């Protein structure tokens, strides 16, 4: 198996090529979370790419900020859920790789639709409850944008998870400080985020280097030590939007636009092709 950083580099290539190919999509957040999803799918989670919807006796991941679908699709394909060639169909008519993830077209690896924000934590909690009822020890993971935390449903879910001691859930927040209309601090400040989750009754873990894949692995493994201890777990993960491509880094400008041919070439020159392009 290739080094995790090498996998992440290939996934980043996939992301920009998919978004360029479709002339639409969301590269910024996808690139920022590439190290997280690489760590999760290629190291931390116990999961089966032959895919059964019920996820019996395996760990499960829910993507709540569905717009980073290019990252999700590339990670799933590179993990063996479906042929990497299918990545070329992203956002095209009759594709299983819809603009935002969906179960409707039966794409292996996707267990619920996301895109309309704020809903994924509830779904993850539901799956975690079912695992408890079924007496399974597997862990449920979810990923959320920081801007997404402005949705009220997130806090309904946060309250529920603590009250019901959903301690087989590890939610991660992509704390990149950016959203469509600008810096989160300007659009709608999240305030003291660690204190908010702590006050809701969660085990709070902060990860400063969310773009260092080894640090991500370490943090996830550390988070797992709290599973079964009576509290839901949240990782507040600092990342850089657009990470890996210098002209996209750190700005919300690349939240939802596609690179042109010239920009694509510039981007790919910065990302080693480690596993072969699709």
């Amino acid at each position: 198996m290739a080094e995790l950083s090498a996998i992440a580099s290939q996934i980043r290539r996939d992301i920009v090529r998919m978004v360029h190919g479709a002339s639409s999509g969301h590269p910024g957040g996808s690139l920022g979370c590439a190290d997280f999803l690489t760590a999760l799918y290629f190291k931390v989670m116990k999961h089966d790419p032959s895919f059964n919807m019920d996820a019996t006796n395996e760990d499960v991941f829910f993507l709540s900020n569905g717009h980073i679908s290019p990252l999700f699709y590339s990670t799933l394909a590179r993990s063996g859920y479906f042929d990497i060639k299918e990545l070329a169909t992203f956002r095209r008519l009759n594709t299983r790789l819809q603009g935002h993830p969906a179960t409707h077209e039966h794409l292996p690896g996707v267990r619920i639709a996301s895109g309309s924000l704020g809903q994924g934590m509830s779904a993850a909690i539901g799956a975690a409850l079912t695992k408890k009822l079924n007496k399974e020890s597997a862990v449920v993971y979810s990923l959320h944008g920081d801007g997404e935390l402005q949705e009220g449903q997130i806090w309904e879910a946060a309250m529920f998870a603590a009250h019901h001691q959903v301690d087989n859930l590890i939610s991660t927040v992509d704390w990149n400080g950016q959203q469509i209309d600008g810096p989160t601090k300007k659009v709608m400040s999240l305030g003291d985020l660690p204190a908010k989750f702590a006050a809701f009754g969660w085990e709070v873990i902060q990860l400063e280097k969310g773009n260092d894949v080894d640090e991500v692995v370490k943090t996830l493994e550390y988070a797992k030590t709290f599973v079964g201890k009576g509290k839901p777990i949240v990782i507040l993960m600092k990342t850089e939007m657009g990470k890996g491509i210098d002209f996209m880094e750190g700005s919300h400008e690349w939240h939802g636009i596609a690179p042109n041919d010239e920009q694509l070439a510039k981007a790919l020159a910065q990302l080693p092709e480690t596993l072969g392009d699709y």
Partner: protein
Amino acid sequence: MLKDIQSTGNKDTRSGFGDGIVEAARKNPNVVALTADLAGSLKLQQFIKEFPERFVQCGIAEANMMGIAAGMTIGGKIPFTTTFANFSTGRVYDQIRQSIAYSDKNVKICASHAGVTLGEDGATHQILEDIGLMKMLPGMTVIVPCDYAQTKAATEAIAEYKGPVYLRFGRPVWPIFTSDRPFEIGKAQYFSEGTDVSIFACGHLVWNAIQAGVILEEKGISVEVINIHTIKPLDEAAVISSLKKTKCAVTAEEHNIIGGLGDAIAQCAAKNFPVPVEYVGTKDTFGESGTPKELMKKYGLDVSDIVAAAEKAMSRKK
């Protein structure tokens, strides 16, 4: 004859749900119940007593409840969400749309206190748009049973049916008259066969339609009263065959005439066999406080309203 159809007792339809979910849970260990602080109103006491570990209290957070229900299906649970109809639909429409309907999750959305017969609480709680909201969602089955017995039967039936379902029932004590009649999802239920006018009804208004039919029969009119408890998928074959016989129709529902049963029947008629259709339902309005009886009268849902609509429909033939 319609006058031979007698009530065998009186009970609220929500109690039919409460009793039905206990039966369903006894039969199927995957049935779980969720509520948003309305376990008592939805008559879940016995379920909670027998299956405490399969009951999930969500607090007053309906959006989260819908998402949790969707998630619980992953691993094979059959979640029944319970709250009032208003909070089961309009309040959480996008959660149902994305996490349940579009994601094809096996969730049963069970909604009580629908319509004006909720009574004194008034318009904030009396949703009259929910059938329309839910039937517009691709893949959603919409069921509006007519009495205690049918609500109980429907609750048991949806547990064994795979796919998202909206089950709508209510608060008032109402005659029971279907105890000896089988219930099948998607299959229209005949109370009489006739040749002059078809009356298609759902929910509490099925009883009113039968009473209206009694009056019409006394006037020598041959009436076909059909309970369309499953509004989606509509039993089109039954509707078309009835329209071909009677050549005019009345629809009766405790819902806005825009978007509900009336729309479904009219669309089926327009596509297949156009005939005059008269609508009994609320006329694009909100409800208000009052007793159920007063509200049924004020909003045009009474037996006399159905009789008048039938006579008008017949007069419009040709």
